């Protein structure tokens, strides 16, 4: 089994009309044993930038803590929050620093940039960014997620419809992956509010 599959994970982020959604599964496993069914894979960096980390859970935790360190100092010095594009560059740089001994994580970054324009991106474990206009996926269920998103995605969805689409894509994909699932965690972010919802899925 690959090190990226050790804990199991599923992450997806999607762009809507002046909003975005970022969703993850809730399983934390140790190979085939399920350890937790309420694992948080998505973290808020600030009100308008969210980070999801798939892959090895210990590296995801450490990477997140390092990013909080850097972001807090940025906020104090610049007296403002980081833009999502800037944050993505920071994540990429930190991952590349460990080029020959990397963090076994695949991040998904989603945020609202200038003029409330939604921004999503993903990158590989050594920081190669992949910007997309529609959706990005990561984790053990990524292949199913690609298929589900490609068929279900529409441009300019309103927050409610976006939520439904992301949820259906996530649940149907994790059902085809034994290492991810046990429910879902969806954040739908508009310029005015952040809606966090838990999905009930197949608990296996």
């Amino acid at each position: 089994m690959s090190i990226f599959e050790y804990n199991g994970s599923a992450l997806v982020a999607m762009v809507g009309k002046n909003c975005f959604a970022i969703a993850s599964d809730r399983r934390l496993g140790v190979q085939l044993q399920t350890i937790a069914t309420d694992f948080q894979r998505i973290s808020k960096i600030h009100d308008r930038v969210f980070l999801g980390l798939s892959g090895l859970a210990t590296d995801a935790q450490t990477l997140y803590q390092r990013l909080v360190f850097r972001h807090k100092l940025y906020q104090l010095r610049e007296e403002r929050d980081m833009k999502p594009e800037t944050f993505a560059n920071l994540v990429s740089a930190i991952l590349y620093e460990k080029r020959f001994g990397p963090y076994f994580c695949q991040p998904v970054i989603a945020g609202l940039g200038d003029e409330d324009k939604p921004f999503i991106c993903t990158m590989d474990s050594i920081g190669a960014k992949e910007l997309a206009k529609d959706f990005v996926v990561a984790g053990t269920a990524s292949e199913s997620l690609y298929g589900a998103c490609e068929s279900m995605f529409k441009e300019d969805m309103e927050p409610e419809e976006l939520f439904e689409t992301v949820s259906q894509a996530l649940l149907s994909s994790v059902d085809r992956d034994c290492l991810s699932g046990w429910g879902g965690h969806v954040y739908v972010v508009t310029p005015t509010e952040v809606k966090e919802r838990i999905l009930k899925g197949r608990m296996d």
Partner: protein
Amino acid sequence: NCGSALTKMSRRYDSRTTIFSPEGRLYQVEYAMEAIGNAGSAIGILSKDGVVLVGEKKVTSKLLQTSTSTEKMYKIDDHVACAVAGIMSDANILINTARVQAQRYTYAYQEPMPVEQLVQSLCDTKQGYTQFGGLRPFGVSFLFAGWDKNYGFQLYMSDPSGNYSGWKAAAIGANNQAAQSMLKQDYKDEITREEAVQLALKVLSKTMDSTSLTSEKLELAEVFLTPSGNVKYQVCSSDSLSKLLLKFGVTQPAAETS
């Protein structure tokens, strides 16, 4: 005569920070404190529901580009802030050092750095410049205001020697002795945050050199707990500050010229 001979001899011990004078003094550290005695004053007062910091702005030209940045008050971490008196460029270095130290602690222990530990850590840095390296000490004094779950609200004062102590009320910068004695008279334990603001503004207005007191010459910041229980550091806006000055009767309007 003997005295003047001694002072002439002691000049030889000025140039290096790392040695004592015959009288057992560190002249460079004392000279650093002299520099601060000419800088804009700052006052800190500890109350039971928060810590208040007030500073006198020395740079008040109309040509100055105003922004949201403050001149005297700086946030170190979500739960700690400081007021500065002395050489601003020295202060910037130390503030950055304190910020990094606070984040390093949080990274290691996943919780906010206790206020005294942060102050101690920064003071250890300052002390280093009085003992090794052949570098001069920092010409800055700080008033640290913060909250942690062990000791609640705290106020600390630190100086160029790297010495620090906890205070209920303290003053640094110009006329700090006058301010300190005024605080000693009027401070009472169990003072509320609003009373502390009033006392700080009153004391500062009395000890400031300037003839008129407006909100442009002052900065006011508070560290307190929100109703949801989180620590908040808030700088008072210029408008709110003007209103407060009027409310407490400490505004002295500039003399009208006909």
